[in-house]
């Protein structure tokens, strides 16, 4: 079913880039499927906050903002086999903003890459769930990420190498907006464009907050649509908290041939927990008991409303 709508996506007020984009909204997901994915996202948020509270370490803000992006990729769009994670023809998924590993691990567990019980051990000595993604520890991880920017070039490398052997496989790379401060991101972008990596789909988790503060204060990136476009990308915008919209954006990216695509997904850092939303304090702070109770009430309350 395809419904043509004109949806206006406004960038959040604090961003230095303020444009409006009209795009066609295709209702590509079956409504039941969409409701299911939304209920998964609700549960993922609850579980991630529960885990991060119990271990008193880890990054809540960027885990909450990337939830629908990862859900759309892993549950709808990417091809892989959790029972055979090394299948060479698989799509590659690289969470370049590796600090959002808690959400990635929660999703990998749902897909049975490893047992859900393991999530409790996150970040503890002896766990296979390292603070940042590590392929030698955790099934479903392609390459270590954590030092921001490097995962992006690595992902491009995968896309270009895969194209030689498996031309129908895609590589998905997920960037943080602060991460795009790194020069290496733009070096990778030049290469992606030069080598016409149309099997390389970048999703920017554009939550407008980095570690020390709001992104437009710490390092204003200006007109990012124009920047990516000038670097030779097909630039697509979507609401990063609408699973269906993310899916549609991925379809649009796949349809574009001869150049790489980036999906600028508008998101909110700490999405779903009011006091974490848009607040850099919750980039990587341990969750105290009182905040935990409040967060749970909000996240679970949301589940009852639905």
């Amino acid at each position, binding site marked *: 079913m395809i419904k043509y709508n004109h949806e206006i996506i406004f960038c959040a007020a604090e961003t230095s880039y303020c444009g409006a984009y009209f795009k066609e909204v295709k209702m590509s997901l079956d409504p039941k499927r969409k409701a299911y994915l939304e209920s998964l996202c609700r549960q993922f948020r609850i579980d991630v906050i529960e885990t991060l509270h119990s271990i008193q*370490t*880890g990054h809540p803000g960027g885990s909450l903002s990337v939830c629908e992006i990862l859900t759309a990729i892993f549950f709808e769009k990417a091809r892989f086999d959790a029972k055979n994670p090394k299948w060479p023809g698989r799509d590659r998924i690289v969470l370049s903003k*590796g*600090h959002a590993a808690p959400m990635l691990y929660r999703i990998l567990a749902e897909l049975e890459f490893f047992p859900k019980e393991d999530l409790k051990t996150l*970040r*503890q*000595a*002896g*766990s296979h*769930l*390292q*603070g*940042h993604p*590590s392929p030698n*520890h955790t099934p479903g991880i392609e390459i*270590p*990420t*954590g*030092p*921001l*920017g490097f995962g992006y070039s690595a992902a491009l490398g995968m896309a270009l190498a895969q194209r030689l052997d498996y031309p129908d496989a895609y590589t998905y790379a997920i960037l943080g907006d*602060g*991460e795009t*401060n*790194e*020069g*290496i991101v733009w070096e990778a972008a030049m290469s992606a464009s030069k080598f016409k990596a149309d099997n390389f789909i970048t999703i920017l988790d554009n939550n407008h907050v*980095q*570690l*020390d503060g709001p992104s437009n204060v*710490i*390092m204003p990136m200006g007109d990012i649509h124009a920047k990516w476009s000038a670097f030779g990308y097909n630039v697509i915008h979507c609401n990063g908290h609408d699973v269906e919209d993310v899916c549609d954006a991925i379809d649009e990216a796949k349809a574009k041939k001869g150049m790489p695509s980036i999906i600028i997904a508008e998101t909110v850092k700490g999405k779903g927990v009011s006091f974490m939303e848009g607040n850099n304090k919750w980039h990587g702070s341990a969750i105290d008991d009182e905040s935990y109770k409040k967060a749970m009430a909000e996240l679970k309350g949301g589940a009852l409303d639905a």
Partner: protein
Amino acid sequence: MPKSIRDAYGEALRKYGVPTENVIVLDADLSGSTKSVLFAREAPDRFFNVGISENNMVAMAAGMSTCGKNVFVNTFTSFLTTIGACASKALISYGKLNVKLAGAYAGLSGAYDGPSHHSLEDIAIMRAMPNFTVFVASDEIMTDRITKYLAQEHVGPAYFRLSREAFPQIYSESDTFVPGGSKVLCEGKDAVVFSMGFMVSKALEAAKKLKAEGIEVTVVDLYSIKPLDRDTIVKYAKSTGAVVAAEEHNVIGGLTSAVSEVMLTEGAYAPLESVSMPDRHAETGKYSDLTKKFGFTAEAVEAAVKKAISRKGK
């Protein structure tokens, strides 16, 4: 409870850096973690947060220093000494520039974040760059004094290894620290432990326990890894005849290497045992769990001392 090394550093950078007009401070979106934020609040016009761009930051610092500035560069040392390595070598080291690299979260102190955020190779990297002075913080007071020295006296490239953690207090207000210096913290005839950073307090603990067993150990803090106090290394290697090097670093390229280079080239032959990271990565975990698991403990130093003594004359 002593202040954490990062708090001591941030406080000292504020205290001595703000009134020193030519001090400039840079950070790459980690000022809340490195504590350079304390300087930033009081001297915002001399503070530059460059966003997440370490490569740019270190080269920028090089340029600033050529205009008469004393530039402090702050970020996790796991990125500073790797992403920043080319500018450190080709610009700062080669150009003999007045840049102070403050290596936050060294050793395993990036604990939960895992090996990509740990730094067990920084000394190996920075020690190999000509013209750099290299210091390692072993307690709060030393951190304060060396930061003061770097802000107000030292001109030229320097690397200062810090930590996220609090270390037991070793020094008193009257202690002084200079390039090429070391501190002999206790003297014993049976063996010597050369140590740096977190492992200095572990070596002292070990010396205390060994004393109860009748084994007398000298403990030296080689806080100036470069220039290195060669005379003290030779003196105690010769007088005790059993040497231990204890460092929160890879066994390759750090304190163990530095000590053994001096011993061999100076002919101070003695058995040498190393308490360090065997050539491998650690893993994610709580700092105290990791230091235990990977043997950065007083027990490990004790065992190494006994082993070195047992090898005497063989």
